[in-house]
């Protein structure tokens, strides 16, 4: 039994944004275990008020430097839903392919640059350049493929340029897509080697039951739009995002928290996988099986492995999307947009979980109200409660301060939090 322990991590490293961990244990009792978000708010929802519809995707992509493509696509979908625009099959497929490549880029960045150093006993990826050059080179190959694909389809890897309401400003060359398809096929091997790497490392065995919220796939693993589902049995249409999220403010956090059927819920790769396992590509399911990852898995550290499984899925699904696109007669990149008064809600699965954008428009297409509910916002309460449980268990096991601190940091990192995004 651990008697006394004081842990204070200010501005946790290897996560996006600013959050603090505090754990206090006295006489074996956890007096406090907190996850505090101290990030400055940027007030995007206020900034949008009075702006015309075409500003929304351009501004909202800038909520996040990692998932700017996801925010842009969610924003576009919210505008299109409000104006009654149905994207063409071509646009929908290109958007999904772009989304897949952001997922790959973000997951690889997280697994190799943010998570692997903990498992390999270093403070960052930098020492690995010397000690594990093949690991770093592999990470860079995978990330470069994903980013090159984002450039080709979205115009730019960060804050995309071609993605607009109604479609795209311009389309990639078919020859560029064909080359991408071949690179995808070649990179599957690097993903399997990534699985080898993680299979050789040990993730903490920690389970705390929670509720998992995600989109519900309809014939395919879900990414853009659809019904909202939870592992506790809640099922709602996309536009009913408010009763699905129930945001509220808490002291010591500039991000809001959310809840559904319990005190907290989780979103992200593990939530998607738990709720849609059978819709994963068979080869992705094989990778999951290698780690005994099957629904419903309640170990938050397995979110890392769920991300790896999704990497395999998006690359293989990317191959099939490109094959379909190459076999199609291509239409104009963009359809006409006619604004109208109304409300548009969009739910999109971005790397860290389900993201909602909702806008209210007047007749001229100006925004009168905006609401964005960010995946990490939805994870904060779950992270906080996980930290409390982790502190209790590790204290009972008599772990050292250093062991508790490392495990607590790894726990938060496993959620891949995007903190400035969650505060926005």
């Amino acid at each position: 039994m651990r008697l006394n322990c004081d842990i204070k991590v200010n501005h946790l490293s290897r996560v996006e944004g600013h959050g603090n961990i505090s754990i206090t244990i006295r006489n074996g009792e956890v007096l406090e275990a907190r996850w505090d978000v101290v990030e400055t708010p940027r007030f995007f929802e206020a900034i949008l008020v009075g702006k015309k519809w075409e500003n929304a995707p351009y501004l909202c992509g800038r909520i996040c430097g990692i998932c700017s493509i996801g925010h842009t696509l969610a924003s576009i979908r919210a505008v299109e839903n409000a104006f009654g625009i149905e994207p063409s099959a071509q646009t929908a497929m290109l958007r999904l392919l772009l989304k897949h490549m952001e997922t790959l880029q973000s997951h690889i960045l997280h697994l190799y640059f943010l998570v692997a150093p903990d498992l390999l006993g270093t403070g960052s990826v930098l020492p690995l350049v010397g000690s594990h050059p093949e690991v770093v080179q592999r990470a860079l190959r995978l990330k470069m493929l994903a980013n090159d694909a984002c450039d080709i389809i979205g115009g730019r890897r960060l804050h995309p340029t071609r993605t607009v309401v109604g479609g795209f400003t311009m389309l990639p060359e078919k020859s560029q897509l064909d080359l991408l398809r071949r690179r995808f096929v070649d990179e599957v091997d690097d993903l399997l080697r990534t699985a080898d790497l993680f299979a050789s490392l040990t993730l903490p065995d920690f389970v705390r039951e929670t509720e998992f919220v995600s989109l519900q796939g309809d014939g395919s693993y879900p990414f853009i739009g659809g019904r909202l589902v939870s592992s506790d049995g809640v099922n709602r249409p996309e536009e009913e995002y408010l009763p699905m999220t129930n945001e509220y403010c808490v002291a010591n956090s500039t991000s809001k928290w959310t809840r559904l059927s319990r005190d907290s819920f989780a979103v992200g790769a593990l939530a998607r996988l738990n709720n849609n396992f059978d819709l994963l590509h068979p080869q992705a399911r094989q990778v999951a099986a290698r780690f005994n990852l099957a629904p419903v898995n309640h170990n938050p550290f397995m979110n890392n492995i769920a991300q790896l499984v999704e990497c395999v899925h998006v690359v293989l699904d990317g191959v099939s999307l490109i094959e379909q696109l190459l076999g199609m007669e291509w239409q104009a990149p963009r359809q006409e947009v006619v604004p109208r008064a109304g409300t548009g809600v969009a739910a999109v699965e971005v790397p860290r979980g389900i993201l909602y954008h909702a806008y209210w428009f007047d007749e001229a297409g100006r925004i009168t109200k905006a609401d964005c509910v960010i995946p990490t916002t939805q994870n904060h309460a779950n992270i906080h409660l996980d930290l409390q449980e982790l502190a209790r268990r590790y204290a009972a096991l008599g772990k050292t301060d250093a062991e508790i601190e490392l495990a607590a940091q790894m726990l938060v990192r496993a959620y891949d939090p995007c903190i400035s995004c969650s505060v926005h």
Partner: protein
Amino acid sequence: MATPLSYLGVELSRPKVAFFELSSCEGCQLQLLNNEASLLDFLSLVEVVQFREAMTEKRDDYQIAFVEGSVTRSDQVARLVEIRQRAKVLVAFGSCACFGGVNQLKNRFADSDWVKREVYGSFPIDTDTVRPLRAVVPVDLEIYGCPVKKEDVERIVTDLVLGKTVCHPKYPVCMDCKANENICLFDLGEPCLGPITRGGCDAWCPNNRLGCWGCRGPAEVANVAELQRIMTEHGFSAETMLDRLECFGGFGAYTEELATMVRNERGGT
């Protein structure tokens, strides 16, 4: 070897650099990691001693500090002042740091309490007027862009290491765009701030048929009035012009008159 040159007091050999972020999306820092092809070369050029988003190791003996983001809360002022004291060269990294960026759009609301209420309701939240770094501390170098262009960052860092004078293009985005033989966005029916925005981005957005939004601030001789005439001639409203001109905060002085015009156009809303 010749005596090592220095620039702004920084020695040429592998300067120690640190990365910091105030209010931002952290995307400009990620642009460095996004440059996979030359990332390892870049890392051999500098010694990174602090980069919280990517590393736990942390030292304060940096010579060059790259600061991303704008100042939006009082605790950031103290942090920025401390960074300024330690660094020989302070670099404003990206448009949020240089101009306030998209964050400064909240400054356009006269009623700052409304801004807070709109997002947090009655929950108390601390926020100030959004400011660029240079409104708080002296800044040695500015790297523009939302996001910064990795080639631009590498060129500037290389210049710093080699002791070369760091120069920004004075010409507008139009020059880059013409050099790339793009069709003019106006001819494609798109609004564009290319004629008045500082070049050097290789016309990143116009290359992808997206008109420029002015993220790099004004070119040296920016004829805003003439661009407004061109926008009007092509059927774009003052509101469209204002949306772009005020987006990143780089055109501060030029936007006020236009903002008044738009308010009048829309009947004072």
